[in-house]
């Protein structure tokens, strides 16, 4: 591996964890820079967590604050749960990037600014009257003004490339400089460049040169006196890869289909931030995966229902507005009792809301969002890699109980990434599927004694020709039936079937004491922030317990008992108090809500302060 050991003697400091925020125009390649730094850090053995923050506009006008695209990575030699509350380093390619992200930089943090980006025009666009790099307003920080564009151009001078092409290489210079500063391996990025531009050798040369120029600049320039070392983290032995939530979701679904020997069918309509599930799955046709880009959200889910009726594992992936459109169809799947997984990658709302920002305000929609009594199973992923497990679990329950299952993820974990310890396929359980084939006394709405699931009788099976649909079914026969007692009975069956799933899911695990003053109950993507906050509180000697729910309907059977053992129950959510409302109503506990709806995840610090406040009072 090509090492970038310093030739000059510079001081090396060891750090436990570092947060870097790369920011620039949406055309500056900051997402790419961030993901390359991530791969390199993973290979260096750090634990890490990342979060991309990009604008809703595809290419907002250059230099504007709303066109700023950022990527934050938190890496360390200890366990890392979040992308970090505040950054230690801000790489700002222009004034807008500085303006937008300065408030998240810690006091005394490092600013690496691309000097050429701070033109009078860009300063004006970002709303600066004077150049902040010169007016002393950044005296609380360590500011490094680097001629990123100019030095990149110098390095590529003899290649005779157009100025636009040269300008586009500057992110690799910045990346090289960060590699030097944090002693990261460069080889993975060089290999990536070679592969990415294999048909354009001049770009391989240009980008590699820019990367190395950044690396060497750190080494030779006088302005940097210190580099930092972040030792490998102690991770569970195994093979790892970095994975985003949406990619993990796709792999989880493929695995469930393979383990159940079913064809996987995804019906989807492009929507932020769920489209990557469609992109990912469309690549894996060799796994017997069919992906259908439908004409709208309703077609996407109803086609998936049609596929499930035909004997496939039908799934659909969407976000809040699409979810709202799918509700009637989910009711149909409830009535027809077919397996179906609906992945809702939540975003800020209501209406179109904040498409690229995160929120977890679709819990009510998932649990209650249909006409009449239409219970479904609801699950939520806690972290990017947990999306793999939750997709598999959702599919398992959908098949076993012949029911729609709603899977909640959100923009934060869908686009965020973390190292995933890769499982061995043979260690994963199979999901048994038994299509009904015996025409003797066949009853489409007979039920399994234990699960209450009805038989899955698919077209093509001789002698089982039958009709199902959205009208109320007669018990056993499935014929249309409007009798009062029958309706009551069927409503009860559908409710009880979902309740019985509780017998088939693990108890929720408690972290910390089993009883005490304060229990924190979380669900979904807040896992990382809550866990960090709890760890920090405990480090200060406080007793705080934590549970994190992945099964939201039905709840794990031991939930009530745990809740009753604490004096205070705190429920932090990125909504206005949806889980806490349900807990209060179901368990009659005075759960305390802690809410935030800013399109952003919780900072661990915010939760830590709330914990302090509750334990004081």
């Amino acid at each position, binding site marked *: 591996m090509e090492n970038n050991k310093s030739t000059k003697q510079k001081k090396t400091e060891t750090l436990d964890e570092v947060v870097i925020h790369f920011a620039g125009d949406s055309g500056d390649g900051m997402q790419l820079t961030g993901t390359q730094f991530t791969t390199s850090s*993973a*290979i260096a*053995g750090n634990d890490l967590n990342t979060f991309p923050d990009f604008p809703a506009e595809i290419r907002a006008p250059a230099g504007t604050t709303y066109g700023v695209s950022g990527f934050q990575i938190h890496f360390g030699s200890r366990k890392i749960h979040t992308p970090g509350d505040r950054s230690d380093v801000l790489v700002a390619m222009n004034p807008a990037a500085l303006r937008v992200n300065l408030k998240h930089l810690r006091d005394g943090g490092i600013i690496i600014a691309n000097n050429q980006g701070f033109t009078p025009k860009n300063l004006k666009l970002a709303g600066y009257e004077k150049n902040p790099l010169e007016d002393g307003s950044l005296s609380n920080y360590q500011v490094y003004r680097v001629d990123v564009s100019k030095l990149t151009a110098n390095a590529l001078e003899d290649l005779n490339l157009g100025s636009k092409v040269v300008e586009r290489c500057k992110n690799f210079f910045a990346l090289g400089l960060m590699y030097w500063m944090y002693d990261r391996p460069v080889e993975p990025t060089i290999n990536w460049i070679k592969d990415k531009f294999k048909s354009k050798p001049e770009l391989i040369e240009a980008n590699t040169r820019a990367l190395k120029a950044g690396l060497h600049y750190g080494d030779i320039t006088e302005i940097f006196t210190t580099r930092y070392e972040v030792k490998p983290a102690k991770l*569970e*032995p195994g*093979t*790892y*890869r970095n994975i985003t939530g949406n990619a993990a979701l796709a*792999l989880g679904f*493929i*695995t469930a289909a*393979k383990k159940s020997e079913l*064809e996987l*069918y995804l*019906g989807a309509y492009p929507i932020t931030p769920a489209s990557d599930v469609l992109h990912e799955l469309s690549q*894996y*046709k*060799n*796994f*017997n995966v*069919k992906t*259908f880009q*439908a*004409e*709208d959200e*309703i*077609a996407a889910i*109803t*086609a*998936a*229902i*049609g*596929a499930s*009726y*035909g004997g*496939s594992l*039908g799934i659909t992936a969407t976000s809040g507005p699409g979810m709202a459109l799918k509700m*009637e*169809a989910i009711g149909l799947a409830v009535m*027809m009792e077919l397996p179906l997984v609906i992945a809702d990658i939540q975003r800020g709302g209501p209406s179109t809301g904040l498409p690229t920002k995160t929120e977890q305000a679709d819990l009510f929609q998932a649990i209650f969002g249909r006409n009449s009594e239409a219970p479904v199973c609801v699950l939520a992923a806690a972290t990017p890699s947990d999306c793999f497990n939750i997709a598999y679990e959702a599919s398992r329950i959908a098949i076993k109980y012949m029911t729609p299952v709603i899977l909640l993820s959100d923009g934060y974990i869908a686009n965020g990434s973390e190292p995933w310890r*890769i*499982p061995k*396929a043979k260690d*994963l359980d199979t999901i048994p599927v038994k299509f009904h084939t015996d*025409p003797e006394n066949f009853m489409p709405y007979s039920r399994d004694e234990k699960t209450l699931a009805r038989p899955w009788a*698919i*077209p*093509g*099976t*001789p*002698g*089982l*020709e*039958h*009709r*199902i*649909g*959205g009208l109320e079914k007669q018990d056993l026969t499935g*014929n*249309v039936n409007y009798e009062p007692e029958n309706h009551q009975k069927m409503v009860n069956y559908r409710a009880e079937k979902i309740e019985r799933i509780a017998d088939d899911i693990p108890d929720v695990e408690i972290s910390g004491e089993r009883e005490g003053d304060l229990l924190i109950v979380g669900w979904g993507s807040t896992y990382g922030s809550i866990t960090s906050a709890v760890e920090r509180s405990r480090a200060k000697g406080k007793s705080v317990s934590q549970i994190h729910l992945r099964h939201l309907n039905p709840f794990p059977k031991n939930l009530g008992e745990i809740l009753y053992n604490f004096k205070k129950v705190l429920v932090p959510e990125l909504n206005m108090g949806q889980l806490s409302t349900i807990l209060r109503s179901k368990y009659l506990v005075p759960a305390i809500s802690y809410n935030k709806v800013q399109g952003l995840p919780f900072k661990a610090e915010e939760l830590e302060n709330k914990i302090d406040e509750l334990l004081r009072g």
Partner: protein
Amino acid sequence: MADTAVKEQKKYTAKDFQSDQDVRWCPGCGDYSILAQTQRVFPDIGVNKKDIVWVSGIGCSSRFPYYMDTYGLHGIHGRAPAIASGLKMARPDLSVWVATGDGDLLSIGGNHFIHACRRNIDLKIVLFNNQIYGLTKGQYSPTSEFGKITKSSPHGSVDHPFNPVALALGAECTFVARTLDRDPKHLQSIIKAAGEHTGTAFIEVYQNCNVFNDGAFFHLTEKGQKEDNVVALEHGKPLVFGANQDKGVRLDGFTPKIVSIDNGEYSKDDLFVHDENADNDVLAYILSRMTYDPELPTPIGVFRKTQKTTYDSEMQNQVNKAREKRSDGDLDELFNKGETWVVE
């Protein structure tokens, strides 16, 4: 199982397609005829009962699957083409039919209809067009005539109606036909032709709603009127109609005109000769526009029948190719894709 196997081999009769459910349409409804003709002709489409699925939406017509002893799915309003599309993609081996109405297919489900057509997914869509909302008791529909007085349009509807055949042609449907509930032989022949087509087949059936829109099509179906108002399209034959087969349709540029063929001025050789397989759809479109022209007879029969790749088979081909070319879904290989590292 042995019994079933024997049963599969024998030729079906209409009775084999009758389910055990009571038919609950209003007495005198045109739907009864559509059901009866379907049951009569289905033994001839050559598909095993176990492989036939009827999918429907909501409305009077959408009760149809309950009465056919095949597989059936009574879905939600407007979504039958989408449900059927998903089913056909997942199971290209099945023969998938959609029973739908003018409100279901052209109003709430209009989007799914045009997209099914353009994809040329192998579905047979049978539109029961009675130009009224029946199940909700008599509001005007997207095919009701302009000015129609109904419960929801007491001063006359100000909606211009869809021309379903023209809509299907415009959406690139590969099989487009029209028939009549009160012409059993014609109805049977069209259902059979649709069954034999590979790709989206669309049949518009003019269907009488004797409760809310009685007689809407009597000028096309009743003796003494239909002869002068209907022209039956037959592939390769000139457009001749009239009680005495003495009238024809002649193309004057792009404009169809009625001419007499018994007074010596014109003969059959001068008439518009129907070519359902024509390369371009201009002629079919001209025929479709005759529908609402009070001067011209309404065409029934197959307007257009062409071939192009179907969505379901292309989708299956991509899966098959991927499975041939790449490993047949090795999970460990999938999990370990891209950059990995080992922690000891």
